[in-house]
């Protein structure tokens, strides 16, 4: 794989309609037939409607939505556990939808690995044998399998647990096994279907850190499904928000938090700790030439929370924001930072519809 650069994932005009005879309705849906109409008049359920997502190689794409939004359906189209009704799913330039059975099997063995919400470990196998499952399916000899599996078990912090059985482990540890099993496959695409949703909050945070740490070295293309916006903002290089089978907003964490596409997204974003998401770049005053004196500075791209931590420990003055090469790009002070953090509530009061919800 080293000599080939993985081409990422491109989902184009993907439709999924559930029902006995879905094909004929695609065109009607494309022309604007709504989900309720389709259900009431024709008895078919619109699962996904015109999904277009481009996921560059090495990027963590979070797909966020509440239950019933179609997020789990969407991720299952990437390794075709579910067949689409129309559309293309290009993984590394190859359309998954057009693969025959043998190609699909090879694709699943070598190009993708998946982590599941309910762990889906094999209860009759111990941790090591579970971790080796993907490699066993690939047909590798045992020595190599053990080697790879042990390395990843060690990496996810399960050294010494190889001989335990899944039912002897806590949920968090079982999911570590799930992660090690997926990573052992060494596939460029890692699909994580609400992988952390069944874990309690502290362990979830812990597992998020594990994933972020790992990603720095493995640089896989990760598709992560979640219903938790905090998780989405923490992990996602890119986030797509799904509602009723449609993507209603795509962008980085910052874009979602600062410019929610509609009230539905705004509703989600309201409770988020902006300090951890928004960068100082978004709130700083632009740099005026000549004023830079080389004092205390913060690199661009720092979160507001981090910047505040620096500022509260220092003096009351403005602090310079410097770009990658060390040139000043702007200044920021505590007042600006604080305003950015509490702004959300002001905005809220300006919107009567949302204030009522509070």
């Amino acid at each position, binding site marked *: 794989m080293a000599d080939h650069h993985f081409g990422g994932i491109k989902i184009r005009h993907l439709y999924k309609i559930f029902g006995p005879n879905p094909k004929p309705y695609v065109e009607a849906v494309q022309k604007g037939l709504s989900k309720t109409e389709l259900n009431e008049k024709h008895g078919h359920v619109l699962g996904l409607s015109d999904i277009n997502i481009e996921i560059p190689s090495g990027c963590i794409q979070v797909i966020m939505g509440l239950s019933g939004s179609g997020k789990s359906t969407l991720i299952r189209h990437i390794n075709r556990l579910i067949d689409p009704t129309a559309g293309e799913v290009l993984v590394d330039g190859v359309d998954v939808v057009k693969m025959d059975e043998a190609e699909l099997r090879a694709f699943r063995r070598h190009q993708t690995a998946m982590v599941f919400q309910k762990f889906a*470990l094999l209860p*009759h196998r111990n941790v090591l044998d579970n971790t080796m499952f993907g490699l066993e399916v690939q047909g590798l000899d045992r020595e190599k399998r053990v080697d790879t599996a042990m390395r990843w078990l060690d990496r996810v912090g399960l050294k010494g647990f190889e001989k335990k059985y899944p*039912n002897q482990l806590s949920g968090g540890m079982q999911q570590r096994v799930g992660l090690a099993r997926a990573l052992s496959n060494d596939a460029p695409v890692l699909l994580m279907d609400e992988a952390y949703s069944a874990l309690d909050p502290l362990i979830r945070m812990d597992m998020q850190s594990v994933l972020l740490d790992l990603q720095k070295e493995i640089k896989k293309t990760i598709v992560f499904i979640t219903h938790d916006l905090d998780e989405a903002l923490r992990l996602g290089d890119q986030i797509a928000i799904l509602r009723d089978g449609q993507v209603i907003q795509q962008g980085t964490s910052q874009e979602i938090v600062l410019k929610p596409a509609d009230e539905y997204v705004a509703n989600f974003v309201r409770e988020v700790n902006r300090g951890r998401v928004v960068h100082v770049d978004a709130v700083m005053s632009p740099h005026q030439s000549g004023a830079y004196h080389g004092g205390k500075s913060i690199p661009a791209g720092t979160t507001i929370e981090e910047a505040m931590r620096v500022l509260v420990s220092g003096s009351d003055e403005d602090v310079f924001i410097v770009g990658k090469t060390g040139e000043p790009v702007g200044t920021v002070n505590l007042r600006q930072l604080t305003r950015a953090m509490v702004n959300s509530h002001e905005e809220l009061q300006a919107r009567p519809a949302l204030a009522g919800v509070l």
Partner: protein
Amino acid sequence: MEWFYKFPHMDDDALRGLKKAIDEGFRAFTRSYGDLIENLFSPLQSFLIAADRFMTQTPWPVIILIIVAIAWFASRSAKVVLGCLVTLLLIGYFDMWDDTMRTVSMIFVCTVLSIAIGIPIGILMARSDRVQKIVSPILDVMQTMPSFVYLIPVVMLLGIGKVPGLIAVVIYAIPPMIRLTDLGIRLVDKDVLEAADAFGTSASQKLFKVQLPLALPTIMAGINQTIMMALAMVVVASMIGVQGLGQPVLKAIANQYFTLGMFNGLAIVGIAIIFDRVSQAYGQRLQKHREIVHG
């Protein structure tokens, strides 16, 4: 109003004719194909004879040792092993050793045959709803038809002896094997199956690495049931010449020998308990890692 009080049945002559036609048809079939079918079953015959010879001609201490060893490896429980030993010693002490060994060898062959036939059919049933719809009613018939009834065609085809007895016992005992294999595979967690698919398993990899191992406890319950039903059938099968504990029971019924009947009946109960406890303990050991300990 006569039809109201007496069910208007088929004309007597016609009915007699129908039964006669069927009987004659089957008899003709037996005459022309009986030998062929008998030859078909000759490997079974040799298997039966070999098993029989092994059980009756091996010195009894060796047999006891083997059975106790199997009990230990299957159950890892001193209680079960001790129970086996005492039961076997009592059976031997009351001079029922040879008959018991014949019965055990018969049950062994029946179980092996039931497993060999039952598991593949169960797998097919689990894979296809259509096969399940066809096989299910056949199993219902096999289980509810009085066992004496299907002794008749078997005896007509193959005469009296071990092989027809074996076939009768297998017909009676195989349904739970098939049903529980089917059930076990169908009950395998959908999430685990999806995971197997996601890792790109082929159909056979999925069957042997995921479905069968996960269905194994249920399949073991099926084997246990099959053994129990085979034992229950031993007395009936002795009517068509199967040797073993059934024959003294049959003799006791015919001559009203209460004690003879009781002793041999208790010997059947004894080996039934041995088989049951050992196979159940093994099934439970298989389950060891399946219960959810953590929530």
